[in-house]
């Protein structure tokens, strides 16, 4: 019973919050509702018994990603309303509504198959975090490492793209013997 209440509450709130995210004209409101929605999503995960995933969602998404978005928002004037040109609202609602309808219809039908075999079945006595850990570091080790490299690359890319004076070399030796060169460089700066 508790599960049912939690499920309906969470789903109603999530849908409402995400609607605000996509419809609002104010950046601040959109971002705030996005963060809140993500917190509620992690609630979903906890209901579904995916503890580790829920925590990761909170840490990464709500903590890191929303922080990133907040920093990005600082570039822009938050008080000014986003002016958006008139898009044909009918088309968008039609597409969105149609896709929702179709997907719901697809999922509402009896699509469960009893022949599906679990590839990496969950183990009963073990906690979810341990379970995830075992599978992650044994079966999914290579994707894990590749994801780590990708994150490294993304970090470097982020630094280069956003940093100041990125056209100048960070490692080249700028010290010179001649005093005039130093003075010239000083003037250049």
């Amino acid at each position, binding site marked *: 019973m508790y599960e049912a209440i939690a499920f309906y509450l969470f789903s109603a709130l999530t849908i409402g919050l995400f609607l605000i995210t996509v419809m609002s004209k104010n950046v601040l409101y959109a971002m705030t509702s996005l963060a809140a929605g993500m917190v509620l999503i992690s609630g979903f995960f906890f209901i579904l018994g995916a503890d580790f995933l829920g925590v990761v969602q909170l840490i990464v998404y709500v903590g890191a990603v929303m922080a990133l978005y907040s920093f990005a928002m600082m570039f822009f004037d938050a008080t000014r309303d986003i002016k958006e040109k008139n*898009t044909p609202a009918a*088309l*968008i609602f039609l*597409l969105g509504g*149609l*896709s929702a309808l*179709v*997907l719901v*219809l*697809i999922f509402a039908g009896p699509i469960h198959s009893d022949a599906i075999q679990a590839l990496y079945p969950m183990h009963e006595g073990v906690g979810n975090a341990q379970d995830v850990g075992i599978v992650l570091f044994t079966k999914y080790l290579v994707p894990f490492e590749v994801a780590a490299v990708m994150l490294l690359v993304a970090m470097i890319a982020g630094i280069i793209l956003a940093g100041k004076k990125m056209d100048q070399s960070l490692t080249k030796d700028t010290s010179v013997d001649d005093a005039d060169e130093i003075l010239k460089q000083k003037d250049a700066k």
Partner: protein
Amino acid sequence: MEGLVYIALFAPFASSLFAALFGMTERKIFVGIVASTLLATSFIASAMLAFYVYGTGNAIHVTMMDWISAGDLHIPFGFIVDQVSVTMMVVVTLVSTIVHIYSIGYMDHDKSFNRFFSYLSAFVFSMMILVMSDNFAGLFIGWEGVGVCSWLLIGFWYHKPDVSREENPSISPSWAANEAFIMNRIADLGMLIGLFILYWNIGSLQYDKVFAAVPFLDGTVLNAAALALFIGAMGKSAQFPLHTWLTDAMEGPTPVSALIHAATMVTAGVFLVIRANPLFSLTPEVSYFIAALGTFVAFFAASMALVNRDLKRIIAFSTLSQLGYMFAAAGLGAYWIALFHLAAHAFFKALLFLGAGNVMHAMHDELDIFKMGGLKKVMKWTYLYMGIASLALAGIPFFAGFFSKDAIIETAWNEGTIVLWAILVITAGMTAFYSFRQVFLTFEGDERYKKYGIHPHEMYGYVLVAMSPLAILAMVAGFGMKSFEHFVTKLLPDYHMSEHTHHIAWFLGLVVLAFAVSGILLAYKKYYHGLKRDEQLENSWYYRLLANQYYIPVLYDEFIAKPYAMISNAMWTKVDMKIVDATVDGIAKFLYKTGDTSRKMQTGNLSNYLNWMAVGAVLLLVVAAISAAAIG
């Protein structure tokens, strides 16, 4: 022996290719010499083959390679050298060699000298394929080849512009070339239909198979095939109504007229009838029609030659007339006589044309015999040659034409077709008259050319020497008739005169001789002492009818050529340009417009692209849902 066959066949081809290498350069005399030498090689090979066939009586059959081998259709490139084809080979190569040597002298001022030899040798090659082939398809290849080469050669001076019909009945060389080719093409339709009928009913186009199967075919089929093949022969040999191209073909250089329109190409039709004699023997109605048409053409052409003023045109009419004689003989069943007349005629007609070429060369291309006269003083040898040829043509005893023409006329009596006999005899008289009219007006009488400022001179010595074999043959060929009959009737059906005809043969011959001699005497009386113009005669309706070739070319122009041109023009502007081109252009325009419209999709706007992506995704979802529902 097989090597000789290939030499005889391909030496002209090599000559043509060799001359073609120099086609674009200026006159080089060795081109002519090499060409003539190669042609002489071909002649020697043909002569050796003739001796072999004469001696052993065997035919030589070679198959070079397969041409078409598709399902049931099997056509090889095969050649047969039997009595009939070797006769043609010798005639063709001999006359071609002499014409080649003649052309070295005749075309010496022409800047397309090399090109001329290329075309001429190519023609000889096509003719050799025609006569040497062992199946109807090969014959047709040669048939078309000589048509093309004839077109190339008639229109040799293609840069001469068109003039009106009053100025020149042939309008221009290119016009005449087109006329010749198109008329031949029209007749080729008949020939093709004949070939199709034969193949459809027999399953093969090889001569031996066809002639073996022909006696077993149905009468209507045979009649249809024979008639269709004869229509093809009508085009090539210029029988009525497809005869106008032959006289217009005189626009080409004189060696061309000598070779093609006297000795070789126009005899291809007769050769076809002789070759396919098993077929024609079985269709007496078609054969009678051939004979009747031939007789009519003989008379018809001779009538037009009586009043003509153009030197070469008179000789062209006489060719037409003699072709009629050959068809009369072939139609009446006397195939070997037709072949004999073909060979004899080739010699003296070629000699006549070459002599006319000498006169033209001397008179700076002037062709009107009313402007000539008295040329015997400066051109003795040409006078002699043309005299000999004309005597042969008129059928004076001991000359070649006497034996051959007389045999044909006797055949007409022998078959009981007295009407044909009478017409042929009258035509013989007319032939004698117009030949000697032409000779006397050109060489005897007053020297009318002087007031045009022309200074004629005799042709070069080597050319006259080259023409001599023809003159000798024109004199003595007749005496070989008996041995020729003995030789050729091993293959062709033997035709003997009945006993009754044999008894009165001397009388019949005397009748013909009387007509011929009276024709000569009439010409002598009128023209020997010079030209006396008779205005009243020249304006009378029958004179003008004959002079304008019975107005047939004008009729063809008005009722066939012009309407056809109008139809073609209408088809071009209304059908081709409006419908076909419009459709193709329409497709192109449609594609272009589609592209242009689709181009507007590239707005560069990310949101737009996302829209389209969502549309696509939703569409796929819908399709998936529907198909899942349909399956499930």
